[in-house]
């Protein structure tokens, strides 16, 4: 079965993490989101896939092709006109799908525990009718809510659910559809919810209930949730043979340490944690509770990192604290930087998303730093702070004072 993966979304709600690359390339535990998704495709025997991208993100094709591994399906790239919805993404790849065949459609920004696609395929195999994966979420206001009858046939899709209708299954962003669906979609001018609604009436669409974990990577803190979801499934420690660990290093819990990592004496690593290749962990550093250190990063002396994602090539200066935060690629964090992760009134942390404060629902949340930012020494970041990519913040409290 062929598949289409849609990754052309601009990811504005995910800024500053998407300032320099698309959200499909956000890298957690050594793998971009897209690679992880495509691996689950090949694991269920789906070896050919079309990936629809935004023309702005052409560079990701090169970057992705370098990753080529037997675990990935063979990819055909399509481009979608910028700014149009997911429906147009499907239309962009319409030549790829034969009308008479079923295909799998997936959004590129979903993450799930192993393996939603398998359960979708099982449902499809048992009934041989179009199916849509559905799941329950904490807050369904952002999703298309569905109603279904006792045969699990979807009877209604509500795009913008009102208060009373919130408590229901939502479309999980993975479908198996007949090729004919694309012409329905074209008739509806590329509006995918309209197309589904029309499709419900003309033929049948069944639900496949997914009761495992499922995350839609929509907000910066979803990256932390996705990271936690991955790590909580680990049960063992995996260490490369080429690592250098000095004496007096304390490692407990499941920890993945890749090639050529150096860990200096006195460091404590309390799993689950991930340390990417060529990273350097300084003396007396403390990494704990779902911390992911990207490849080639440097963690200085006495740094504490807790439930955070630090992407490739970043440097964290000595005596800093990074809590519940996401740090982009090649970020320099000066020494003694504190990313505070809790409000003094114990309330949940709100983050400014596209000019509007959105409640994350989390009592502990730190900061989000865009790629290539350079943060001087001695700063304190309040919970929910965002720093755009390439931003430079001078040292704080310097002597002699700046002119």
């Amino acid at each position, binding site marked *: 079965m062929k598949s289409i993966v849609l990754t052309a979304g601009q990811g504005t709600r995910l800024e500053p993490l998407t300032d320099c690359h698309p959200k499909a390339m956000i890298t957690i535990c050594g793998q971009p989101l897209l690679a992880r998704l495509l691996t689950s495709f090949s694991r269920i025997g789906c070896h050919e896939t079309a990936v629809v991208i935004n023309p702005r993100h052409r560079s990701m094709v090169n970057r992705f092709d370098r990753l080529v591994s037997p675990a990935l399906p063979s990819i055909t790239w399509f481009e979608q006109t910028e700014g149009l919805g997911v429906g147009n993404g499907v239309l962009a790849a319409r030549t790829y799908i034969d009308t008479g065949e079923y295909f799998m459609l997936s959004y590129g920004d979903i993450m799930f525990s192993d393996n939603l696609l398998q359960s979708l395929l099982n449902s499809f*195999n048992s009934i041989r009718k179009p199916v849509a994966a559905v799941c329950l979420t904490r807050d369904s206001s952002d999703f298309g809510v569905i109603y279904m009858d*006792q045969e699990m046939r979807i009877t209604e899709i509500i795009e913008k659910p009102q208060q*009373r*209708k919130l408590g229901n*299954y939502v479309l999980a962003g993975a479908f198996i559809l007949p090729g004919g669906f694309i012409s329905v979609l074209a008739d509806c001018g590329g509006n995918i919810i309209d197309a589904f609604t029309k499709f419900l009436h003309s033929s049948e669409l069944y639900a496949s209930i997914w009761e495992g974990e499922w995350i839609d990577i929509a907000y910066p803190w979803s990256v932390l949730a996705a990271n936690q979801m991955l790590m909580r499934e680990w049960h063992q420690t995996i260490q490369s043979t080429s690592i250098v660990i000095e004496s007096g290093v304390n490692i407990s819990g499941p920890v993945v340490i890749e090639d050529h990592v150096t860990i200096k004496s006195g460091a404590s690593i309390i799993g689950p944690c991930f340390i990417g290749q060529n990273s350097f962990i300084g003396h007396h550093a403390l990494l704990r509770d779902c911390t992911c250190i990207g490849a080639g990063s440097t963690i200085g002396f006495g740094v504490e990192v807790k439930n955070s994602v630090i992407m490739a090539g970043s440097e964290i200066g000595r005596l800093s604290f990074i809590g519940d935060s996401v740090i982009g690629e090649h970020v320099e964090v000066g020494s003694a930087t504190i990313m505070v992760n809790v409000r003094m009134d114990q309330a949940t942390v709100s983050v400014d998303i596209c000019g509007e404060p959105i409640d994350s629902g989390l009592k502990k949340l730190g900061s989000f730093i865009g790629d290539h930012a350079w943060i001087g020494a001695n700063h304190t970041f309040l919970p929910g702070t965002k720093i755009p990519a390439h931003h430079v913040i001078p040292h704080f409290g310097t002597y002699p004072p700046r002119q």
Partner: protein
Amino acid sequence: MCGIVGIIGSSRISPRLIQSLLNLEYRGYDSCGLAILNNGVIDVRKDTGPVHQVAEQLRFSEMDGCAGIGHTRWATTGTVTRANAHPHLDNSGEFALVHNGIIANYRALRQKLQHAGHRFLSETDTEVLVHLLAHKYAETGILDEAIRRMCRELEGTFALAVISNHEPDRIFAARHESPLIVGIGTGENYIGSDFNAILDYTRNVIPIHDGELVILSRDSVSIRRLDTGEKIQREFVKLNWDPELSQKGGYPHYMLKEIHEQPNTVEAALTMDPEKLEAMCIKIQNARRVYLIGVGTTFYVALTAQYYFRRLTGRHCIALSSDEFEHVAEVDEHTLVIAFSQSGETYDTLHALRYAKNAGSHTAAIINVLGSSMVHEVEMVIMQQSGPEICVLSTKAAIAQIVIALRLALEVGKATGELSTHAFNDHLEQLNKLSTRVRRVINETKGFVNTIARETKKIRNWLFIGRGIYSAVAMESALKMKEVTYHHAEGIPGGFMKHGTIALIEDGFGSIFFLPPQSEANLYHHSIANAEEIKSRHGFIVGFGFGEPSDLFDHQIRLDDYDPLTAPILLLVLGQLFSYYSAVVLKRNVDRPRSLAKSVTVA
């Protein structure tokens, strides 16, 4: 119900037989055993206990041989002992046999064989089969002929599989009214009581029909008629997918599927025969005393019905747990006993009905399974038509029973003049709207219930509290919670709080309130007072109710489409959903909770 498997191949089969037994464990789990033919000797190992434990203790995996049979037992004839476990051997040790079903005439056969010198080691009907087979083999010297002769003498139901050192390269099997299928592998063939037995090895299956004999070798399958011995040609069927999955219609668990079927079972329950309804109504009116009995979930159904009867007919129909019935009930010819039972096989309820019948009482029952024992025991039966319920926990059957009881109470109320025609029509109209309301509750609250369940998964102790009819709903919901999550949940009437139970409340103790509509002011305010008592002791409170939310609760679900009469049923649906999602979050075996069986047919 027992599980059967047989494998014949060219390599060691014990690991595969063990796996099959594990897959079959749901058909019976009180004992299990294997018989494998190795160098002309039949090696039998069997004991009581779960498969993994017996397999380890008796070292099933060390058994050599390429042909063998296995069995998981759910005791019917004979208690749970090692001797009664299958496979059974004859006295010479030349035949081993496993069997699923019940042989009706086994006592007569056993006496006959004992006279002929056979020594019996167990109390089972199955052992009779293997001795009878040895006996017939001595007459004919041909095994398939001996099996056919044996089957001719049997009355009852059976599916059986046989190995013998006289035919070391074959497995024989036969069926009559018990399930049996053959699986085709490469250089290996299988026999099983159902698809689960062979699911891991092949998807190519030949269904076997009643009155057929199968002779299996590693590269051939031959099917014959048991009566004439005539050969039958039958193609294999390729099963594409797990049949259980298709039965579940894509739902992850039967329990969720059955919860979703509730709107339809409510409708089906309301379409009951008007004549039956009237006859039952007359019976109730004529009786001086009415008992409503059930046990477990059905007792709580009876308890709910008791409130409905009081409210709509003014009569106190006594709800009693069937197991306590004979110790407290006063029975005479003026008594009517109405039993609730999903399976119609419930031991305690059958026992109570017989006790009442002996005292000259009238009996009636509301039952889901047609042709069950209870149907023949009582004077009058109302079938609830809920369709098969597979999940061990009863959801849709319980709701349907409550609906039937409610309908019955309405009818009696009208007949006795307790309800005016206007009130009756009004209530009936609301009852007809119930299925739509149940559908809305299911479709519109699952997400909220799931969120609550995720946040409360660490709470291991729960109080489920209600007042009036809602106390019965609380108790039934608590039972669901216990059964499926293995967490402690106690359903109590709110009035109990001050009289002891409140001592339990401490930081983080969980409680769920089943709140009546605010129009029932007295009950509502008393319930809220209970919630405040818990709140002031830092307990965690969830509220299921109607109308405007209250900030007292840590979590709450309020329904806005209800009517006071059927409102308790809507809250019961919330209770079911909460138990379901709690179990899913805790990764419990939802459809087959530990230690539980669908129908309890033993004391």
